């Protein structure tokens, strides 16, 4: 064996071993029973570099959220607000104890939340959908102007327009520096327009299962800054009603008995679940603006199972048919092409594991397409070799010429398909992206396996003074 050939084979074997090393965690993980995997998942002990299964293959839900940019504070740039929103949503979901959730920004003002294994995302939706804007305002219902405004709003059928704004005839009755808010238990309150203390100054929040009136309550504590502000506010307003406002709704309005600095409680007719969600969102912080679900997909676990089964078995049979066909039609050369094809599969899975890529059903389709392209590369080479063989050339020349002449076509066709893949990656979303990723990885790998590896195999065969090769 020449030095050059030895280096080639060293490289191929090193890459193969590296690939097997990368694939091994997948094997180890997916051979564990489901219950154990779930347990390890929640403990956060899932291996990092591993192939993930997409929602279409394992079941789960995805939510696409839109941040209401119009309600964003003018001081905060969109990018910062989005980054903050993603972070806050992640905190909320994490505290709820869902494993492997993917939360990613998409486009300008969209956030994609993927919840594997969750087939009814309603709870998650509630958790995410809460803006959780906690504010403390002073109630001022007792002036004549306030009474007038309250009377008017209670007798109006639709006091708010479609955008949630007060209709003008009521708005003009509200005294300067105040605003009207809905009470959680019905009715309305006139409160100060300014909110001197907000949830941003909170340090912690937790559920108190048995509150004063028998319902669960949420207790919270302020940080140093919050304590100072809250002390000031309560100290100056003893004997008045303090409105605890959550997402523009007055939750409760207790009378301030004394100056309070550190702790407080939100009481109301909460269910235990509601109280738990509220404490989570309060702790995680308020969203910079409300979010709205604009797309929701759920895939039940049984459908995921069915689709993985039929998709995988069909892909398997397709592969077997191709391998058999190559072996029968092209004999030894076909067998060598088949080896390259299997290596292509191994390397692609290894690379995807390394990048922790997500395998979806369209992703499998992309893999099949790249395998078909790899086959085409070998068909091109073998057909060229056949042409040379018919001219009666010696075997080493057949091989050299076959590769040299086929190379430009293989290269150009792979590059054009990679170009298509790159366009898909750039503009596609979700399933299309999954397809593009496996296609690009598969094609790049196929340039290596279908050309470099097969040639190394031929060269190895040639070292034993082979005179004839069956094509």
């Amino acid at each position, binding site marked *: 064996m020449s030095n050059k050939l030895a280096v080639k084979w060293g490289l191929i074997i090193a890459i193969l071993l590296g690939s097997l090393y990368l694939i091994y965690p997948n094997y180890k993980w997916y051979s564990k029973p489901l219950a154990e995997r779930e347990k390890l998942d929640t403990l956060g002990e899932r291996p990092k570099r591993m192939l993930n299964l997409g929602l279409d293959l394992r079941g789960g839900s995805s939510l*696409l959220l839109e941040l209401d940019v119009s309600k964003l504070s003018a001081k905060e740039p969109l990018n910062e607000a989005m980054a903050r929103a993603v972070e806050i949503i992640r905190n909320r979901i994490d505290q709820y104890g869902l494993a492997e959730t993917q939360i990613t920004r998409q486009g300008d003002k969209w956030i994609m939340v993927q919840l594997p294994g969750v087939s009814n995302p309603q709870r998650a939706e509630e958790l995410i959908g809460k803006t959780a804007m906690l504010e403390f305002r002073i109630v001022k219902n007792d002036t004549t102007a306030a009474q007038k405004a309250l009377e008017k709003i209670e007798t109006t059928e639709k006091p708010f327009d479609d955008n949630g704004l007060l209709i003008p005839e009521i708005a003009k009755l509200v005294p300067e520096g105040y605003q009207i808010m809905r009470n959680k238990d019905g009715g309305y309150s006139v409160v100060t327009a300014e909110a001197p203390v907000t949830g941003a100054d909170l340090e912690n929040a937790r559920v108190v299962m048995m509150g004063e009136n028998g319902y669960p309550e949420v207790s919270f504590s302020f940080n140093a800054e919050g304590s100072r502000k809250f002390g000031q506010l309560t100290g100056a307003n003893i004997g008045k009603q303090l409105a605890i406002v959550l997402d523009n709704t007055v939750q409760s309005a207790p009378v301030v008995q004394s100056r309070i600095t550190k702790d407080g409680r939100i009481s109301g007719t909460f269910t235990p679940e509601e109280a738990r969600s509220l404490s989570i969102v309060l702790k995680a912080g308020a969203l910079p603006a409300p979010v709205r*679900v*604009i*797309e*929701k*997909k*759920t*895939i*039940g676990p*049984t*459908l995921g199972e069915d*689709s993985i089964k*039929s*998709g995988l078995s*069909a*892909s398997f*049979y*397709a592969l077997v048919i191709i391998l058999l066909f190559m072996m029968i*039609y092209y*004999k030894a050369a076909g067998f060598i092409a088949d080896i390259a094809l299997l290596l292509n599969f191994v390397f692609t899975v290894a690379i995807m594991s390394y990048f922790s890529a997500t395998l979806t*059903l*369209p992703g499998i*389709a*992309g893999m*099949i*397409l790249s*395998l*078909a*392209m790899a*086959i*085409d590369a070998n*068909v*091109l080479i073998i*057909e060229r070799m056949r*042409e040379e*063989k018919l001219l009666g050339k010696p075997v080493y*020349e057949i091989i050299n*010429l076959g590769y*040299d*002449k086929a190379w430009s*076509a293989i290269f*150009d*066709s792979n*590059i*054009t*398909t990679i*170009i*298509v*893949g790159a*366009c*898909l990656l*750039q*503009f*596609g*979303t979700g*399933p*299309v992206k999954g*397809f*593009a990723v496996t*296609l690009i990885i598969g094609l790049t790998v196929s340039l290596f396996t279908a050309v470099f590896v097969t040639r190394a195999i031929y060269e190895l065969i040639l070292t034993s003074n082979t005179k004839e090769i069956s094509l």
Partner: protein
Amino acid sequence: MMLKLLPKTNIDFLKYRKAYYILFALVLIGGVICFFTKGFNMGIDFTGGTMVQVKFDAPVEMSEIRDALSATGAESELQSFGDNSFAISEKSTSSEVGVVQARIEKALDTLNVPYTVLMTNSVGPAVGENMTERALWSILLSLVFIIIYVAFRFSNILWGVSGVIALFHDLFAMLFAFSLTQREIDLVVVAAFLTVAGFSINDTIVIFDRMRENRHLHPKMKFGELINLSINETLSRTIITTLTVIFAVLVLYMFGGEVINSFAFAMLVGCISGVYSTIALTTPLVYTWSHGEMNDGSELNKPAAKLSVAVKREEAAAEGYAPKKTVTKIKRTRRNRK
């Protein structure tokens, strides 16, 4: 002994080019008529709307479900998958995601047959619009890049344009098939369209590559003969590759399950159309546009340079017709033959 599907062929592919063009025109006209009369069944990924797929525990008649749904006053489409599973979809422009789903489930509850929700999909109109935009952009952009790349690699913009016209033909054929069968076009189908685009241009490139090579091997050959020779020489490869892909796709189509069924269908139509368009459209177009002349680059594209082409060809022939770039290539081949 080599196994051969095809004997060595010598078919005059260019002879019938007028017939191909007429067929192409028929596909175009038929397609346009079909698009306008039947339209497309765009999936809710693009239109926005809600889809709920359920599986009943006991057999339920489709008409019963339809009655229950129409009692809610909504216009839902019902599709049966066998095995007591059904998909109910409703295209809506309502921006409230989840409302329609709740209404559909409420209607199904009135049937009093227990069911499980297998899958739901609610897409707001803004998302649908965005998806359509993205899909169109990705198709347009890949076509442009393909033209640029092919024009660059084969140093002739005509070749790139002809290749893309063939791609248009394939896209058109697939859209035609989807319009005719009223199959739903969703995001995955768009991925299939683009895959076919990549695969069809693959065929084109293999033949172009042969033409590029033959041009240097047989500098005196007439362009028409050269094209025919190249197609014939690559025909065996074209058929083997296409057959393996069609085999693979056929298996996916029959056994791959409903999720990739439409993907496989698009691939099937596209692959067949792709071979046809490469042989019967791309190369004849290159031939027609270059007026049967050998054309190795920019000269023919400039009208003023046309007159001098004949002279230049003679000069080129005297020099052995070898532009600088190709000299090295021939040398390399010769060295290999030693």
